[in-house]
């Protein structure tokens, strides 16, 4: 089986350069930036605060509300900044990826608002959004069972790789691209998995294994960013 050479010369399991930073928005209760290659996501957390409109209040537990949006200048062609079908879907995906780890049952009738902005996009925006949102939630002091890290695995023709960029996502040769965004907690549980394309069972397992390793690296970076934020104040 011929191995595919990746357009930017990375190895199969090599990630783009990534970095995180916490506390970038002074007004928010918690905020973070996550960058992976040319994809940059910023997240701001507000709350827990009383849920409005009132009919959406849940007297049993708190609610998580994510809003994902791409800035109009984040891609080559200006995109309309209004909420779209796609941004609604990704907001929901981010909520589902994060909810299993959050412990907001002690805040009934309230909402934790997470606003995510993609200020520069080069594929893998939903993963960057989740990574930034988790850091912002931790920074805001929301109790959580675990941190979540997210990465997009994928298949280029017949080769499984991690962290696709835009050039790879548009790859057209052979079997074409398969995109598999996965979110994994630091203890190895999967909270979110999407799949767009065709893949065999064995290769999917391979992709998950590679994602687990990649998420470990991302988790270390998230941890470092949170810890360094405190050290700055010293």
């Amino acid at each position, binding site marked *: 089986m011929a191995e595919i050479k990746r357009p930017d010369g990375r190895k199969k399991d090599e990630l783009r350069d990534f970095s995180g930073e916490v506390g970038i928005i002074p007004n928010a209760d918690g905020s973070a930036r996550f960058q992976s290659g040319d994809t940059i996501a910023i997240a701001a957390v507000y709350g827990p605060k009383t849920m409005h409109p009132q009919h959406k209040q849940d007297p049993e537990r708190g609610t998580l509300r994510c809003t994902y949006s791409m800035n109009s200048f984040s891609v080559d062609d200006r995109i309309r900044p209004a909420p779209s079908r796609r941004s609604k879907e990704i907001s929901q995906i981010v909520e589902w990826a994060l909810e299993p780890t959050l412990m907001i049952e002690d*805040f009934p009738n309230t909402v934790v608002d997470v606003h995510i902005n993609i200020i520069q996009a080069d594929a893998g925006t939903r993963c960057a959004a989740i990574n930034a949102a988790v850091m912002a939630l931790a920074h805001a002091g929301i*109790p959580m069972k*675990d*941190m979540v890290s997210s990465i997009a695995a994928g298949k280029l023709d017949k080769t499984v790789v991690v962290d696709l960029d835009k050039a790879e996502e548009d790859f057209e040769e052979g079997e074409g691209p398969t995109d598999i965004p996965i979110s994994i907690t*630091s203890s190895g549980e999967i909270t979110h998995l999407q799949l767009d394309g065709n893949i065999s069972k064995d290769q999917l397992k391979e992709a998950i294994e590679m994602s687990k390793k990649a998420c470990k690296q991302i988790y270390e970076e998230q941890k470092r960013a*949170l810890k360094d934020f405190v050290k700055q*104040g010293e």
Partner: protein
Amino acid sequence: MAQETQKGEGQKREIVVPGEIIVKGDEYLPGDGTKKKEGEIVALKYGLADKSENLVRVIPLSGPYNPRTGNVVIGKVVMLTENGWVIDIGTPKTAFLPLTEVPMYVNKGALDEVMDLGDMGVFKITGLGRLGASLSIKSGFFGKIDEGMVFKINPHKVPRIIGKEGSMIKLIKERTDCKVTVGQNGVVLVKGESVDQELFARKAINFVAEKSFIEGLTDKVEQWFKDHGVEPEEENKSESSESSEPSEKQRE
């Protein structure tokens, strides 16, 4: 909360993120902000892990104020009801001040004569229920705020502002000549002779909140006051000792 100042006595506190393992084995018991999971104690919050005696807990650095019975808080009236006031004290759940906890006669349906919407006051938390905290203003120290400057700081920095046995707050009061009341919910009230004095006190308190990670902070603050041209004065001491009394109560 006063333990915050004991930093440096034991081992250095480590910063932890949610899901991080603090200790393994059965040596310790899990305290606030931690959970026992498969023989390991895991952090549930972002903060400083504190291991004292046989208890492990996480001191949060951020997040909503967690009310406790006996805390002194400063809040704002957000609603008037038939039998009391709804107060916003910065918690996810709102707080309630019932009519029975007000030590004066209130005309029926005229609650606004005592405290109207938007008024601020100093309250004591008497209990915590499912719906939130219940408050009281029974005591001369509590009640509506008539004058002074109110501003917010991070509620998790309050123990630092007060200092070990009130040392920091005493220093600030002495040097700024203001009366300072620190609510455990992170709302601070300063009362001085002039607005300039109050602004100076606010600057000093914000300085302490910002530098809260430094050890030996009291000396640093003393230096800060010197840099700003305030030298310790003997005659100030008698006056400030009066006003420091309320703050002693707050630390409990």
